[in-house]
């Protein structure tokens, strides 16, 4: 397809912006650009075609089955967008006086209470703009906590080897050194390795529970004890909250800080560079370190409060991406007290059903019951036929299915990490199983076909190596 710059014809334009209703301000000559902006010159119709074509080349949860492991690609109910589009919520400005946006502040206050209830935390901020941003906020809180106790030698964050890559990255960003500990042969945190790593330099442990192998860390209470005894704090990476929401509260199992990925568990849109949210909750003894402003209530009136002496400051201008929080709140209220645990159970049931339907062909990396996701290894298939996890992933594209996460977690060779989520029907999972089984048969009889895949997509197999080594990141006008 043509890039927007290639659609440009000099002299064409369109009026999509309303007329300016404030007095124009003339910039001083030294403030002006020396060069004209090279914007594409197109009609409104051409812009519309451009975006429709872009859309037709992407794949989302609305296009088809999307079991991308550890990403919880569940359906985003349309009612979320409907509520977020109400003028009282959308036609507001962050600098408006609090008394004119009481409903919005009340929504944030309610969201804080509900998400605290689900996670077992006492307070929560919605300021961080994404999951990893939330991780950074949570880790800065850990640092502030130790500093406030003059316990400044604690510079290590322990991270299991199944953790998402953001964990060690956030720990490093926050000024800690991350220490990786190996998982045991059962795929869970090795308690002996944890005991050996925990000590007087331990600032905390970051843990995803269930972990990225789809296994519940059943020793969580003992894990919490080891870390707390060593003087560290326990950080819950909320990436995999979906299968336990409304059933197990991280706060009850010993966690001190939690971040949530609203785009995973609470059905707000994923990625695309749009606004996100990575709320961070904590136990009461850490609340004073939370970022400001915070939403407070007094005598039925809601307001932003910033006068917390020990706060870590602000993570972002204003108070996070409100309409995303509102979508998550809508989802939570729609499902309600009964629906939230039911969704969690469906996620677990769907994953186990799909795993059982495939385990006679593909080897399950850690057999037994799984939670929201499971990891297959294509290693035996690769040895037998030469067909790799990547070949399977690429072949799925020809069947209008999004591939699972591949080559993660790294401790499983040729990993295929599958998370069906709670919003898939038995029918769509059966359909997917049929395709996976067909591909297995095809790999045995005609491996070359899988090496060549995809053949039906807009672009064939991409040269990922050249794309990574010599990326072209901007349009070349000349």
């Amino acid at each position, binding site marked *: 397809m043509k890039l927007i710059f290639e659609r440009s014809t000099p002299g064409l334009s369109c009026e999509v912006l309303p007329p300016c209703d404030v007095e124009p301000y003339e910039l001083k000559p030294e403030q002006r650009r020396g060069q004209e902006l090279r914007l594409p010159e197109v009609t409104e119709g051409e812009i519309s075609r451009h975006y429709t074509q872009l859309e037709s080349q992407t794949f989302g949860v609305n296009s088809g089955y999307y079991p991308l492991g550890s990403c919880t690609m569940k359906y985003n109910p349309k009612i979320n967008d409907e509520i977020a589009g109400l003028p009282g919520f959308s036609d507001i400005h962050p600098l408006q006086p609090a008394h004119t946006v009481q409903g919005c502040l009340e929504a944030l206050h309610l969201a804080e209470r509900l998400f605290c209830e689900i996670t077992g935390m006492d307070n929560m901020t919605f300021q961080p703009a994404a999951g990893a941003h939330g991780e950074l906020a949570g880790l800065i809180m850990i640092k502030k906590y130790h500093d406030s106790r003059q316990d400044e030698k604690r510079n290590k964050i322990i991270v299991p080897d199944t953790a998402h890559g953001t964990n060690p990255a956030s720990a490093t960003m926050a000024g800690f050194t991350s220490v990786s500990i190996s998982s045991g042969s059962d795929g869970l945190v090795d308690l002996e390795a944890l005991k050996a790593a925990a000590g007087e330099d331990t600032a905390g442990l970051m843990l995803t529970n269930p972990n990225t192998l789809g296994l519940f860390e059943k020793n969580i209470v003992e894990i919490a004890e080891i870390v707390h005894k060593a003087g560290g704090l326990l950080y819950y990476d909320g990436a995999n909250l979906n299968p336990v929401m409304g059933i197990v509260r991280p706060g009850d199992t010993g966690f001190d800080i939690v971040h949530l990925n609203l785009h995973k568990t609470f059905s707000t849109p994923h990625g695309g560079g749009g606004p996100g949210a990575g709320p961070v909750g904590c136990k009461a003894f850490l609340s004073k370190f939370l970022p400001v402003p915070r939403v407070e209530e007094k005598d039925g009136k809601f307001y932003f409060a910033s006068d917390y002496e020990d706060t870590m400051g602000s993570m972002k201008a204003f108070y996070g991406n409100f309409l995303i929080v509102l979508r998550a709140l809508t989802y939570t209220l729609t499902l309600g007290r009964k629906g939230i645990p039911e969704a969690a159970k469906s996620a677990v049931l769907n994953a186990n059903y799909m795993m059982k339907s495939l385990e006679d062909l593909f080897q399950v990396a850690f057999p037994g019951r799984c939670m929201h996701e499971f990891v297959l290894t294509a290693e035996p298939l690769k040895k037998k036929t030469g067909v790799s996890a990547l070949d399977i992933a690429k072949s799925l594209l020809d069947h209008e299915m999004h591939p699972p996460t591949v080559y*993660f977690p790294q401790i499983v060779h040729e990993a295929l990490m599958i998370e069906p989520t709670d919003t898939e029907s038995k029918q769509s999972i059966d359909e997917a199983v049929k395709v996976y089984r067909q591909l297995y048969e095809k790999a045995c009889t005609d491996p070359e076909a899988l090496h060549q895949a995809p053949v039906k997509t807009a672009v064939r197999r991409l040269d990922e*190596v050249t794309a*990574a*080594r010599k990326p072209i990141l901007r349009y070349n006008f000349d």
Partner: protein
Amino acid sequence: MKVDKDIKYSKTHEWVKFLDDTTALIGLTDYAQEQLGDLVFINMPAEGDEVSCDTPFGDIESVKAVSDINSPVDGIVAEVNEEIAENPENINSDPYGSWIIKVSNITEICDLMDADSYERFCQEEA
């Protein structure tokens, strides 16, 4: 999978070639590059940095994943292979000819394997 008989190997798939008692070249094994796939980027330490046993001194990125490179010895980085920094794909084509760092002042050597034990170790892991 290829092994070089004259060098030592770590459990995290680095190789060590001793130039003398306290100086060695360190690289990634053929098994490691095979598992990682096409390499696209390498994060190197600086000359003069201290490295220590079983502790990452850099990381390497392939089209699949980013992995730590651990040091098999305690010592000081004497030299970084700039050619590998520019062309990490050389590790794919010639893992044992592509050293990553040269370490001097080696005071401690981790638990290392000879070629035969390393070959067995990889077979068990696979």
